[in-house]
C-alpha cells in the first residue's frame, strides 16, 4: 500500500488548489449536514425530553368559561373513569387576549394561576430564571417571552384584560409542557399573590378555569378521552369550553420549527453534495487528461490501474475525512445560532450536546459518496494502454464542428474566442449551468420565505382568515356593537366569527371557524378545492383531515358538540398549518344545529385602513360599550407578534442561503477556471506570442463562462418562479398547506440573478488573473 500513499502524496502536491477547493466544498457539506442532523436528533427531541422531565403525563386540559357548576368533586369523578393519575388547579382563563410579544402582539388564551401551581407534581411548572429581589407587582412569564418575545427580567409588561390596564414587572420565566408556547395556543402567567387576588376578585365569577394534567388508563386513547370528557362537562354546563392538547400534539407544535429548519438545511446540503459529485468527477477527468503521460509511465514500470485508482481514492478520502471532521466541528460551533432560532419557537432552555448520529453520519455519508464517485469516475484509468498514453494518444482531438467561425461571427474577436472556449469547455459549462440553476432555485425559496414572512408578511398562510381587527363583545351587547360597526364609514366587511372545537366520531376533532356568512371571508385562498359552505347543512374541512378520514367533496360528515350532533355535506377542502391540520369552516346557521350561539360572546371581524384606525375604532367602541368589551385584537399587531420568530428565521435563512450559494459558486468557479487555465496554458502562451494582452485573455476566460451562467439564471429564474410554490406545496403538504400562493417578488428575483452573474463574472476575472503569470516565452521554451 506504500506505493499508493506515495502516489497520493504526489497528487496532493501537484493539485494543491483543486484539493483545497474540494476540501472546502466537503467542509461546507459536512457543516450543513451536522447542523441538520443536530437539529433533528438533538434540538427536535428537546421538547419531548423537557415534557418528560416535567412529568407532562399524556395531556393537558384547560377548562374555562362558566365553570361555576363544575366542582372539584365532579371533575374528580369524570377524570377517575379514564385516567390513572391526574392533577388539577383552579385559576383564571381569559380567552383570545392580545398581549405584547416581540415586535407586536400575540392573541392567545391567557391563564392566570397562583404560585401553588409551581408545587404540582404531574405537569410540573418550573421556574427557569428569576430575580427574587423583585417582590411586588411582579409576574412570571413563559420562557418564550425571553427567547423570542424581547422581554428580560426586570422589564415591565403591560396589557389589558376586560378593558382594565395591568402593569407587571417581570420577575422570572417559567416552563410548562402545555401552556408556555404560542404554538399551543395558551400562555400561563403567574402573578404575585396580591395581584392574583385582585384578578380573582374582579373576574373570578366569569373567568374561573381549571388546568388539568393527566395520565390515561392503559388502552384509552387521548382523542377519545377528550371527546368523552368534553361531552361529560357539557352535560353539566353546555357553555363550558375545553381546550388544551395531548402530550404528543404539544411537543409537536413546540418543535415544528426545528423540523422545518432541519429539512431546509438538508435540502441545501443535498445541493452541495450534488456539486461535490460534479466537481469530484470533473477533477478526476482532468487528472487523467493532465497526467496521461505520467499514468502511461507508471503503468510502464509496473503499476496497475488499481494501484493508480487506489492512490486517487486515498487522496480524495483524505480530503473527505479531513473536510468532514473540520465541517462537523464547525457544525457544532455554528449550532448555537440555529439553536437560537429553534428555542425561540420552542420557548424552553436548550444547549447543544454531543450527538453520535450527527457526529458520525456526515463522515460516513460523505466517505461513501466520495468512494462511489471516485471509483466510477476513475474507471477509465484501468483501460489506459501505457504506450498510447506515453504518446499522449488518448488526448487526440475529435472536433466535429468549428464553433463560432471567426470569419462569420457577429461578435468581436475577444467575444468570439471566448465563445469558442465555451464550446470546447462544454462539460464544465454544463456543470456551471446546473450549479447556478440549483443556486437560483434555492435562493428563490429563500427570497419567497423572506418576502412572505418578513418583508411583507401575510397571515393567510398562518390563519384561516385575516382582517384588520376583531372586537369581542359580551352577549348582552353584541347586536348593538355589530350595528355600531356597520354604521361606521371607516369600517367595512363586518362579520361575526367564532372558533370552536367540534368532534368527529369518538377520536377526532375539528377546530371550526364559524362565520355568519363564510362568503364574507377575505382569505378565499384558504379553500383550495371545491367551495366555501353556503347553507346550514354544508361544511368545508381541511384537506389533511379529509385525507386521513378518506373523505371526498360531496361526502357527509357527522359532527358532535356535547350531547348534540348534526350531519353536514363537505363542499370543499381548506388548507391550514394549525391544529394538526384539523380545521373546518361553517356558517352560523350550520353551527346552530350543534349549539345555541345566542349566549356566546360576539366576535366582530372588520376591515379598515390600517393599524392606527383599527386602534381608533377600538377606543371608540370601548367608550361606547364600556364594561361589555371582552377583547380587542388589532390584527396588524397580531401579525407583528405572530411573525416575530418567523421574521427572524426568514431573514436568517435568506442570508444563510445567499452566503452558502455565493460560497458554492465561488468554489465551483475556482475549480473550473483553475482547470481551464491549466488545460489552455499552451494556448494562452500562443495567444500572448501573437500579441494578445493578458487583460483580453482574462476577459475572454471570464466571458467564456458567462453564457452558461446567464442562460442558467434566465431559465432557472423562470422555472423557480413557477416551480417554487408547487415545490413548497409538496414540502408543506404534510403540514397542511396544499395550494400555497406565496408571492415571489420579481425585482428580488432579478436582483438575485444579477448578483449571481456579477459575482460569477468578477470572481472569474479575479481567478483568471493568473493568466498574467503566463509568459509566452516561458511557454515556448518549456515545450
Amino acid at each position: 500500500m506504500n506505493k499508493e500513499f506515495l502516489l497520493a502524496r504526489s497528487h496532493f502536491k501537484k493539485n494543491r488548489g483543486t484539493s483545497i477547493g474540494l476540501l472546502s466544498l466537503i467542509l461546507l457539506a459536512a457543516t450543513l449536514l451536522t447542523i441538520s442532523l443536530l437539529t433533528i436528533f438533538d434540538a427536535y427531541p428537546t421538547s419531548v425530553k423537557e415534557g418528560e422531565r416535567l412529568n407532562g403525563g399524556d395531556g393537558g386540559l384547560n377548562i374555562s368559561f362558566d365553570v361555576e357548576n363544575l366542582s372539584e368533586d365532579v371533575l374528580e369523578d369524570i377524570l377517575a373513569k379514564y385516567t390513572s393519575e391526574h392533577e388539577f388547579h383552579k385559576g383564571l382563563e381569559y380567552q383570545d387576549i392580545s398581549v405584547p410579544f416581540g415586535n407586536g402582539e400575540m392573541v392567545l388564551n391567557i391563564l392566570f394561576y397562583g404560585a401553588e401551581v409551581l408545587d404540582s407534581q404531574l405537569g410540573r411548572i418550573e421556574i427557569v430564571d428569576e430575580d427574587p429581589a423583585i417582590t411586588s407587582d411582579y409576574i412570571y412569564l413563559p420562557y418564550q417571552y425571553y427567547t423570542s418575545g424581547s422581554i428580560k427580567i426586570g422589564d415591565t409588561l403591560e396589557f389589558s384584560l376586560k378593558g382594565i390596564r395591568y402593569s407587571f414587572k417581570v420577575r422570572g420565566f417559567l416552563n410548562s409542557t402545555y401552556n408556555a408556547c404560542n404554538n399551543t395556543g395558551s400562555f400561563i402567567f403567574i402573578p404575585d399573590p396580591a395581584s392574583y387576588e385582585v384578578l380573582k376578585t374582579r373576574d373570578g365569577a366569569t373567568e374561573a378555569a381549571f388546568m388539568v394534567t393527566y395520565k390515561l388508563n392503559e388502552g384509552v386513547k387521548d382523542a377519545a378521552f377528550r371527546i368523552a370528557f368534553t361531552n361529560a362537562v357539557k352535560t353539566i354546563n353546555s357553555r363550558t369550553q375545553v381546550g388544551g392538547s395531548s402530550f404528543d400534539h404539544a411537543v409537536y407544535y413546540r418543535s415544528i420549527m426545528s423540523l422545518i429548519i432541519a429539512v431546509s438545511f438538508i435540502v441545501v446540503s443535498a445541493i452541495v453534495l450534488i456539486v461535490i459529485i460534479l466537481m469530484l468527477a470533473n477533477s478526476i477527468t482532468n487528472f487523467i487528461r493532465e497526467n496521461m503521460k505520467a499514468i502511461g509511465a507508471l503503468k510502464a514500470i509496473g503499476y496497475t490501474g488499481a494501484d493508480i485508482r487506489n492512490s486517487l481514492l486515498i487522496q480524495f478520502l483524505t480530503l473527505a475525512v479531513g473536510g468532514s471532521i473540520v465541517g462537523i466541528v464547525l457544525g457544532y460551533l455554528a449550532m448555537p445560532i440555529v439553536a437560537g432560532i429553534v428555542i425561540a419557537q420552542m420557548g424552553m432552555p436548550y444547549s447543544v450536546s454531543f450527538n453520535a448520529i450527527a457526529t458520525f453520519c456526515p463522515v460516513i455519508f460523505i466517505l461513501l459518496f466520495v468512494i462511489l464517485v471516485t471509483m466510477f469516475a476513475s474507471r477509465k484509468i484501468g483501460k489506459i494502454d501505457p504506450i498510447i498514453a506515453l504518446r499522449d494518444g488518448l488526448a487526440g482531438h475529435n472536433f466535429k464542428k468549428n464553433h463560432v467561425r471567426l470569419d462569420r461571427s457577429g461578435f468581436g474577436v475577444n467575444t468570439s474566442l471566448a465563445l469558442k472556449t465555451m464550446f470546447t469547455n462544454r462539460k464544465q459549462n454544463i456543470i456551471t449551468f446546473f450549479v447556478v440553476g440549483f443556486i437560483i432555485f434555492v435562493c428563490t425559496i429563500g427570497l419567497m420565505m423572506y418576502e412572505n414572512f418578513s418583508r411583507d408578511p401575510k397571515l393567510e398562510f398562518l390563519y384561516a382568515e385575516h382582517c384588520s381587527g376583531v372586537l369581542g363583545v359580551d352577549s348582552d351587547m353584541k347586536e348593538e356593537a355589530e350595528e355600531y360597526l356597520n354604521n361606521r364609514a371607516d369600517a367595512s366587511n363586518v362579520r361575526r366569527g367564532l372558533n370552536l372545537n367540534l368532534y368527529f366520531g369518538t377520536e377526532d376533532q375539528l377546530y371550526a371557524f364559524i362565520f355568519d356568512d363564510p362568503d364574507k371571508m377575505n382569505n378565499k385562498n384558504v379553500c383550495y378545492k371545491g367551495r366555501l359552505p353556503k347553507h346550514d347543512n354544508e361544511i368545508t374541512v381541511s384537506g389533511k383531515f379529509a385525507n386521513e378520514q378518506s373523505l371526498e367533496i360531496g361526502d357527509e360528515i357527522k359532527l358532535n358538540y356535547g350531547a348534540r350532533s348534526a350531519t353536514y355535506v363537505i363542499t370543499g377542502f381548506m388548507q391550514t398549518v394549525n391544529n394538526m391540520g384539523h380545521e373546518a369552516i361553517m356558517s352560523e346557521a350550520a353551527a346552530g344545529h350543534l349549539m345555541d350561539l345566542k349566549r356566546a360572546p360576539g366576535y366582530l371581524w372588520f376591515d379598515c385602513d390600517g393599524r392606527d384606525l383599527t386602534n381608533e375604532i377600538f377606543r371608540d367602541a370601548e367608550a361606547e360599550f364600556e364594561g361589555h368589551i371582552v377583547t380587542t385584537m388589532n390584527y396588524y399587531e397580531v401579525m407583528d407578534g405572530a411573525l416575530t420568530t418567523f421574521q427572524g428565521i426568514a431573514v436568517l435563512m435568506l442570508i444563510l442561503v445567499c452566503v452558502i450559494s455565493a460560497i458554492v459558486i465561488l468554489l465551483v468557479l475556482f475549480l473550473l477556471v483553475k482547470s481551464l487555465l491549466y488545460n489552455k496554458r499552451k494556448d494562452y502562451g500562443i495567444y500572448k506570442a501573437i500579441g494578445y494582452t493578458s487583460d483580453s485573455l482574462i476577459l475572454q476566460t471570464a466571458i467564456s463562462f458567462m453564457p452558461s451562467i446567464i442562460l442558467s439564471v434566465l431559465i432557472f429564474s423562470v422555472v423557480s418562479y413557477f416551480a417554487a410554490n408547487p415545490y413548497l406545496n409538496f414540502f408543506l403538504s404534510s403540514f397542511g398547506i396544499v395550494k400555497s400562493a406565496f408571492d415571489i417578488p420579481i425585482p428580488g428575483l432579478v436582483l438575485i440573478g444579477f448578483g449571481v452573474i456579477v459575482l460569477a463574472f468578477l470572481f472569474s476575472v479575479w481567478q483568471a488573473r493568473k493568466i498574467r503569470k503566463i509568459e509566452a516565452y516561458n511557454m515556448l521554451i518549456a515545450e
Partner: protein
Amino acid sequence: MRNIIETKKLCKTFSNGGVQQHVLKNIDLEIREGDFTVIMGASGAGKSTLLYALSGMDRPTLGEVVWNGTDIAKKASDQLALFRRKNCGFVFQQTYLVDSMSVLDNVLAAGLLVEKDKKKVTAKAKEVLTSVDLPEELWNKFPTQISGGEAQRVGIARALVNHPAIIFADEPTGALNSQTGKDVLNALTRFNESGQSIVMVTHDITSARRGNRILYVKDGEIAGELELGKYVSGDKDRHSMLRDFLREMGW
C-alpha cells in the same frame, strides 16, 4: 537599407538555484530592413534567446533593444504584446497553432487583433493561406487534421497576416522532413524576395543558405557575420562560402 532593430549592450542572464548563466553578453547588433537574417550557432549558444529578445517576446536583463528609435526592453508584458501584434510575426518549430481552432481561424485570430474589418481580414487571411500554397479544402480543418508541413505553412500565414515589419522564425523546419521543410523555406524566401524582413534561427546549413546575412552566435556573443547576398537557387558558391564561414566559426 535602414535598420529596423538595434541592440545596445544586450545581456540576458538566467538564474537557476543561485547559479547565474550569462546567455547573451553585451551584444550590439543591427537588423536591416528587407534582410533575411539567419542566426546560427551550437545548441545552447543563445541564438533562440537572442531571437526572442529582439522580438520583444522576452525582456533582456541589461541593454537596449531599439525598434525605430524606441527601446522596447523596458516595456511591460502587455505593452510588449501590443508591440508584437503590430510589428512581429512568429514562426515556431512546433508551429504552436491553437488546436481547438480551424486553420482559417488560427490566421484570423492574429489578423483581427490589428484590423477590425472582418471582411478585409478574412480576405487577407485567405490571400496569405493561398500564398503559402495551402489548399482551400484544408482551411476549415483543425491543426490536428493536417500534416506538420501544412501546419507550419499555416504558422507562416498567421505570421504574415498583419504585414509585420519582421518575421521571426525559430527553427521553422526543425520538426519537418526534408521536402516539407523545403516547401516552408521556399515560402519564406518568396516573401523575403517581395521585401519582407525575416530573422531566422537555425542550425541547419541548408536552411541557413536562404539568408543573405548570417550571424554566428557563440557563448552569448556574435562571433562572426557573413554577407551572402540574396538567395539564388542552385548557387553552389553560396553553399561553400557558408560552409567555410561555419568551419571558421568552429561549427
